[in-house]
Structure formats: structure tokens, C-alpha cells
């Protein structure tokens, strides 16, 4: 048995100071890592807070793309994508899909005709147990180059300062192209007539291990018909949801999944820069939307369409957005599930 050995008072004091320094240093390092000393750090909480619409926090709802409607269907791969990625989703076959047509607004009650950007969340499952989740929108490029710029855009849009947007546009000139698109691009009267784009780039890995930087789009087979926003406003606040419900009841709606491959030097890290039109594009399959379900009890309600949920064979690229979206979407999911008592389900305990 070791006997406690006597120490002098001075050495005990020195030891206690040393212990205090070590413990204090450990606690400080932890606090620093958690961001407590760096309030300027852009956190998922800040990003999600900045999305709060003027109508107030949409309790129980997604913090962006808050208005939407569920669908289920099938993705039928034609096998052509196997040349680009070994993911099972590209091998010829049919795979169950579910998704959500949505509007890029943080207000779940926004009238459909008031929202410029429309989106689609999609989840395709394959028999190997893997999932491919994606959240796409209909503009041909993203408004800004970086997540920080997106955050600044949210702050400027919500600002009471009349010059806020001007100041923002001076600092982030890429917004001009998006502004031009928003003004001039035609509106349609249906989700079925929209082209939905990944905008972010991803890396596909083929069987030989070769990597391909790509973006993808869902091209509608329905012919787009241009309708003026004024005419759309007359169709009622939820015309998009009513229209797609009726349309799919009349017959399944289809989109072609087209994968576009970057040339060396194309801007893979900046979704505000479209790639030139002539880039090689491969049609890899068809998404068929077979059924529409209201969101409140629909299969998409509980799904976080996190674009970094990818099967093996697809991974993120140097594009900084998927990581930022993943962290912010998770925060949105954490908040809305904690507020689920505020969400207007029609059937209680519909899910365990």
C-alpha cells in the first residue's frame, strides 16, 4: 500500500494552481470550440433565425420552403447513369420515390402566386438500403455564391433600412443575374411544368474509381404554359396544390432526370454560375409522380430533404452549400419537431 507522502504547503499551492490552469484551459477550449467566444461565427441557429418571415416564426413548419404538398411515385433508371456512378440508383430498374412540391417561402400560408421560386424535395430508396435525398428549385442558378452571402441576403431582405438591398447588391453583384431572372422568367400554372435543378454540384464515382463533377435537373415532360402572375393570383391562394392534385389524379406526371457533367475549370463551387449550355448531359431515368397527398398527414411531412443524404457513389463536391444546407435543415428539423404540437395534423397519432 502506498503511503500518502507529505508535501510542503508551497508545493501544494503550486499543484493546485497547476490543476486549476489545466481545468480552466480545458473548459475554455471546449467553450471556444462551441463558438462561445466567437459570436460572429455563422451558426445554423443564426441562419435559421434569419429565415423568420415577417409573419412570425412558423411553429411546427419547415423554416424555409414552408409551404408544400407530398407526392409518392417511382424513379425508373435507364442504366445510362452507371457510366458515371456505381450507386445502385443508376442501375436499370424501378425504385420507390417520395417527395414534396414546395414554395421557397418561410411563410406556410403564403398565396401561391406570390412566391417566385418553386422547389421539389425528393427521396429515392434503393434495395441496398441506401437513400438519395435532394432538394431542387426552378431557377437556373442560385441567387448568391456563398452561404455567407445567402445569410447577408436574408438579413438585407428583412432589413428596415431602405438601402439594405442596394448595399447588399454592391457587395454581392452576382445577385443581379438572379434579379433579372426573377423579373423576366415566365411563370407557369403547375408544378408539373417546372424544371427543378440541383444547382449545387456533386461528385459521382464510377466503377473504375473515376470521378465526375455533375449537376442534375428534372426536366418536365409536360409542356410549360406561360401564365402572367396577375392571372395566377386570380386562381386562389392554393392553386398550385389543387392543380397538381387534380392533374395527378388524371394521370401520372413525369420528369426526365438529366445529369450534366462539368468540363475541367467549370465553377463547381459556385451555384450562382450556370455552366455553359453545351456541357455533356446524360438522361439517366424518369421520375413518375403517381399520387399526391396533403402534407399534414403525408409521407413527406417527417422527411428532412437534406441534400447530403447520398448513396455511396455520390458525394459532395467543393460547393460549400450542401454542408450549410445540411446543418441548417437539421436545425429546422430539430425546431419543427420540438414544436409539433403546433403543426395542424388532421389525424392525431397518425405516426408512432
Amino acid at each position, binding site marked *: 500500500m502506498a503511503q500518502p507522502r507529505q508535501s510542503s504547503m508551497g508545493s501544494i499551492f503550486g499543484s493546485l494552481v497547476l490543476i486549476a490552469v*489545466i481545468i480552466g484551459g480545458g473548459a475554455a477550449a471546449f467553450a471556444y470550440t462551441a463558438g462561445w467566444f466567437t459570436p460572429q461565427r455563422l451558426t445554423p441557429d443564426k441562419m435559421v433565425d434569419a429565415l423568420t418571415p415577417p409573419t412570425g416564426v412558423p411553429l411546427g413548419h419547415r423554416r424555409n420552403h414552408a409551404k408544400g404538398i407530398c407526392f409518392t411515385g417511382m424513379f425508373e433508371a435507364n442504366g445510362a447513369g452507371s457510366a458515371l456512378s456505381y450507386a445502385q440508383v443508376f442501375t436499370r430498374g424501378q425504385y420507390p420515390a417520395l417527395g414534396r412540391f414546395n414554395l421557397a417561402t418561410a411563410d406556410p400560408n403564403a398565396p401561391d402566386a406570390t412566391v417566385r421560386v418553386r422547389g421539389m424535395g425528393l427521396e429515392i430508396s434503393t434495395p441496398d438500403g*441506401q437513400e438519395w435525398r435532394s432538394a431542387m428549385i426552378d431557377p437556373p442558378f442560385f441567387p448568391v455564391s456563398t452561404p455567407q452571402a445567402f445569410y447577408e441576403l436574408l438579413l438585407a431582405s428583412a432589413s428596415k433600412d431602405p438601402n439594405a438591398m442596394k448595399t447588399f447588391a454592391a457587395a454581392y453583384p452576382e445577385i443581379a443575374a438572379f434579379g433579372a431572372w426573377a423579373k423576366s422568367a415566365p411563370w407557369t400554372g403547375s408544378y408539373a411544368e417546372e424544371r427543378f435543378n440541383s444547382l449545387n454540384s456533386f461528385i459521382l464515382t464510377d466503377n473504375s474509381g473515376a470521378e465526375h463533377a455533375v449537376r442534375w435537373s428534372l426536366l418536365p415532360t409536360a409542356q410549360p404554359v406561360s401564365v402572367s402572375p396577375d392571372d395566377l393570383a386570380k386562381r386562389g391562394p392554393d392553386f398550385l396544390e389543387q392543380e397538381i392534385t387534380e392533374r395527378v389524379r388524371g394521370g401520372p406526371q413525369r420528369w426526365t432526370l438529366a445529369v450534366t457533367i462539368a468540363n475541367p475549370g467549370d465553377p463547381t463551387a459556385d451555384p450562382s454560375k450556370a455552366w455553359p449550355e453545351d456541357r455533356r448531359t446524360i438522361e439517366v431515368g424518369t421520375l413518375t409522380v403517381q399520387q399526391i397527398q396533403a402534407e399534414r398527414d403525408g409521407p413527406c411531412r417527417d422527411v*428532412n430533404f437534406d441534400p*447530403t443524404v447520398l448513396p455511396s457513389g455520390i458525394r459532395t463536391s467543393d460547393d460549400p452549400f450542401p*454542408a450549410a444546407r*445540411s*446543418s441548417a435543415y437539421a436545425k429546422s428539423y430539430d425546431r419543427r419537431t420540438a414544436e409539433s404540437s403546433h403543426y395542424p395534423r388532421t389525424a392525431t397519432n397518425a*405516426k408512432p
Partner: protein
Amino acid sequence: MIERHQRFNPLQRLLHWLMAACILAMLFIGVGMVSTIMPKYLTLVSIHKPLGIAILVLALVRLAIRLRYGAPALPVDLPEPMKLAAQLSHYAFYVLMIFMPLIGWGMLSAAAYPIVLFGGVHLPPILPQSDSLHTLLWNAHFYLAFVFFALILLHVAAALFHALVRRDGVFDAMAPVSSHDGAAPAQ
């Protein structure tokens, strides 16, 4: 000279120091990843999940070894409250080492996220999708992480107190190598 049975056996010491490194890394990765939107977020998350499962497996192995081989007795002259604190803290460590990974696994399951370890290797969900379970487990995972880190700080402080002030062989019982072989330290 400390008797052999006064120390944890070499496997116990190896597991202790290996897991100390893993758990500290895990806690720092955890608070770091939830406070950033940068690309490193994905890297940190992709380490957090398999490391958590590794800690769960190591903790179960360690528990079995602890039950089989026990622990060296605390010094007889250690005050009773300190003995009680030492014993309770060990129980708390085992509970946290085993349940933190399970809570994390359950939390991801309740959110219907795929639980990816690496490449195409997934774990099955251990709970159905549930908003209320997800919220409960998320809160537990978050707050228990701070409890875990506070307990580690307390543990380190106590270990250093034994090593530097009391010099009673308690630190030596878990030290990677014994510093007391042969001679008493110069004082």
C-alpha cells in the same frame, strides 16, 4: 513499490487511455459541428457517428473487463465523501459511455435519417420516426454532452489532485506506466 494488484491491469489501462482520447475528441467534434455551417460540418458529422459507435463497443468491452477484474481498492485513509464521489463518478462514466452513443443512434432513428458509418455501411434504425422521441433524445444528447465534459474535468482534477497533492497511488493505478517503481519521488 506499488503491488501489481494495486493497479488496473494493462488492458484496462489501454482501454482507459484510448477511450479518453476518443471521448474527448467526440465531445469537441460534437460541440464544434453543431455550431458551424462550413464544409467541415460534414467532415465532423462523418467522424462523429462511427466514433460514437466505436466508443459504445469499447465501453461494453470495458464494462465486461471491469466486472471480471474489478478495480484496485482506494486508499484506506481517503475520506468517505471522496470515496463515494469516486465510485459514483465511475458509475456515471459507464452510464454516459454506453448511453450517449445509444441516445445519438436513437435520435437519428427517430428523425428517419440514415445512420451511415462509412461508405455504404449503415446501421438499422432502433426507433420509429417520432417527433416527440426525437426532441427528447436530442435534448438528452445535447445536455448530457455538457454533463459528460464537466464530469471529465472533475475526473482530471481529481486525478491530478491524487497525483500531485495526495500522492497516494490512485493516479498510478491508471497511469500508462508506473512512475513510482522502485523509489519514492524526490521531495
